[in-house]
């Protein structure tokens, strides 16, 4: 290697003193970055608007529901539906929403994560798989009421023998199909985020493909699986439109029901309760609608908390 002599590095003409002073002028010019300041202001404005809207919604629901939730809380969460506003409750909705969530979790999570694992780890990167992935992304954008029509045709009518018609099973399966694309997409993203160096390392030690998936890919992608699953569960808990089409009841009275009757008989869910209460005369029932909304929010909050705790635990185990 040839090292240049110092003389070759030096400029032939020495700089004038003013030139040097100009180079060292680091004084801040206030007018220099107007565009940046405007953008920053606009972004802050966007955040304020978003937070204010969410806060308003939550606040108004809480205020509207305060009378019902403070005056007759236990009646409200433990009584079935009733035409008497002082005795009406949403226990059927709570039970229905929990059952729906359980069905979604049992069906959509394993199927969705399994599909994502197949697409990412096993399927060859061909035109077909790419087409499939685009279709899945499109399905995530289909309006939920359309899934309701699908549920009505397939689960309520064609599979009546298994689901018992307009039952919580039909509703749960419909919601499972509804959130399946979201589960697949989020799972796909988290599988892609697993570094190839881990796969290479495991293959290099003589692991089979299944061992690589089981010991490297799934543990690393698990926090992502959880986040996606819980997001989609929250979405499913809040949906009313598809349940309406599938035939969830707005109002029903039953005596004692066994587990099987609950699964195959009439059902409702918390969003249905909200819709139902808001249709009734406002002076008497408005508080009930808001109160049912608060119960939904609480349920979603619990789901998210579970996800956050589980995620933190797994991340800690991985980085320990």
């Amino acid at each position, binding site marked *: 290697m040839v090292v240049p002599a110092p003389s070759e590095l030096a400029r032939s003409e020495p700089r004038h003193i003013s030139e040097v002073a100009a180079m060292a002028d680091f004084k801040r010019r206030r007018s220099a970055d107007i565009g940046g300041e405007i953008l920053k202001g606009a972004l802050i404005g966007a955040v304020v608007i978003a937070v204010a809207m969410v806060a308003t919604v939550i606040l108004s629901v809480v205020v509207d529901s305060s009378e019902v939730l403070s005056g007759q809380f236990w009646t409200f969460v433990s009584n079935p539906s009733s035409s008497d506003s002082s005795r009406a409750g949403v226990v059927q909705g709570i039970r229905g929403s929990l059952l729906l969530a359980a069905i979604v979790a049992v069906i959509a999570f394993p199927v969705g994560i399994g599909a994502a694992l197949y697409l990412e780890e096993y399927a060859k990167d061909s035109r077909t798989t790419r087409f499939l992935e685009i279709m899945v992304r499109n399905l995530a954008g289909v309006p939920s009421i359309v899934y309701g029509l699908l549920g009505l045709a397939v689960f309520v009518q064609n599979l009546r023998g298994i689901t018992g018609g307009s039952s919580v099973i039909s509703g749960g399966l419909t919601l499972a199909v509804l959130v399946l694309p979201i589960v697949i997409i989020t799972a796909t993203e988290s599988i892609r985020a697993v570094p190839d160096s881990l796969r290479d*390392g495991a293959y290099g030690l003589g692991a089979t493909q299944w061992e690589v998936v089981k010991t490297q890919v799934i543990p690393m992608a698990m926090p992502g699986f959880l986040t996606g699953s819980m997001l989609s569960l929250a979405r499913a808990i809040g949906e009313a439109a598809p349940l309406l089409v599938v035939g969830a009841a707005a109002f029903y009275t039953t005596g004692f029901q066994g587990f099987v009757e609950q699964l195959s008989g009439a059902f409702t869910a918390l969003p249905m309760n909200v819709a139902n209460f808001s249709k009734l005369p406002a002076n008497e029932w408005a508080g009930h609608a808001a109160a049912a909304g608060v119960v939904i929010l609480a349920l979603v909050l619990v789901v998210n908390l579970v996800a956050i705790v589980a995620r933190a635990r797994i991340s800690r185990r991985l980085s320990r």
Partner: protein
Amino acid sequence: MIEQTLAAPFQDKSAPAVTTGQPLRAMAESGDPVDTNPSLTKIDVTPTETATVFSARGLGVSYGGERAIENVDLDIGDRQITAFIGPSGCGKSTILRCFNRMNDLITGAKVDGTLLYRDVDLYDDQVDAVAVRRRIGMVFQKPNPFPKSIYDNVAYGPRVGGRRRGLDELVEQSLLSAGLWDEVKDRLTDSALGLSGGQQQRLCIARAIAVGPDVLLMDEPCSALDPIATGTIEELMKEMKRQYTIVIVTHNMQQAARVSDRTAFFSSEVNPETGRRGGQLVEVAPTATVFSQPADQRTEAYVSGRFG
């Protein structure tokens, strides 16, 4: 103990090399249901102890129709360090990844020609790539410890091989062989991600050793490390060649000169027939010869720093 002259193309088998008891390999195989049969194939072809570990003839690789490298004729000697050097894009890493069938994992990669490992054709239909990788370990460019404890990293290979007992001793032996034991023996349950880069790379070496391989392929193992960690790994390699055949890809010519017994120089050339650029093996010779009196002008230009 095994002193070699650089001029000898392959290690003299009458030297004590044969007597290397390979305690680690023996240990890895005792009580191990998977590795008791060293055969790579379902047809019973037991690899014989030969002076030549790998023998490539007309070996080439294409990715989706593009020729990455072709026509490689190369022999790798037993318990020697062979260095692959050459400019970027010359296909040296690609060839290295043929040796333990890692190219199988790349969609569209196609290997042609023949590659014998101790007289077994590695690309025979009957050969199981997973079994190949258990005999021929690999250390990667960037240290890639698993996000697990130090212990679990080393025990990973034996565990996926079905081994459940004697892991403690195996982990200790492997870490000792990789020169890492004294630094980590008190924190085996700590995350491997907390180690320094050089320690992580030695952990990856220990992890590869724990499977009981015959060969270690190292793909630029020091390129992400500082000079001191690099020196440690180079010393380790010289130590390890008593037991293992090592093939190392390196961008660092001084490293090749320091550690290797033989050096293969690869270059990227435009094929006059197709007009396409592709890698090829220019020459392979004892390291001293490659660096002092190379047969090919291109080698001379590269090792003297005039290109690449």
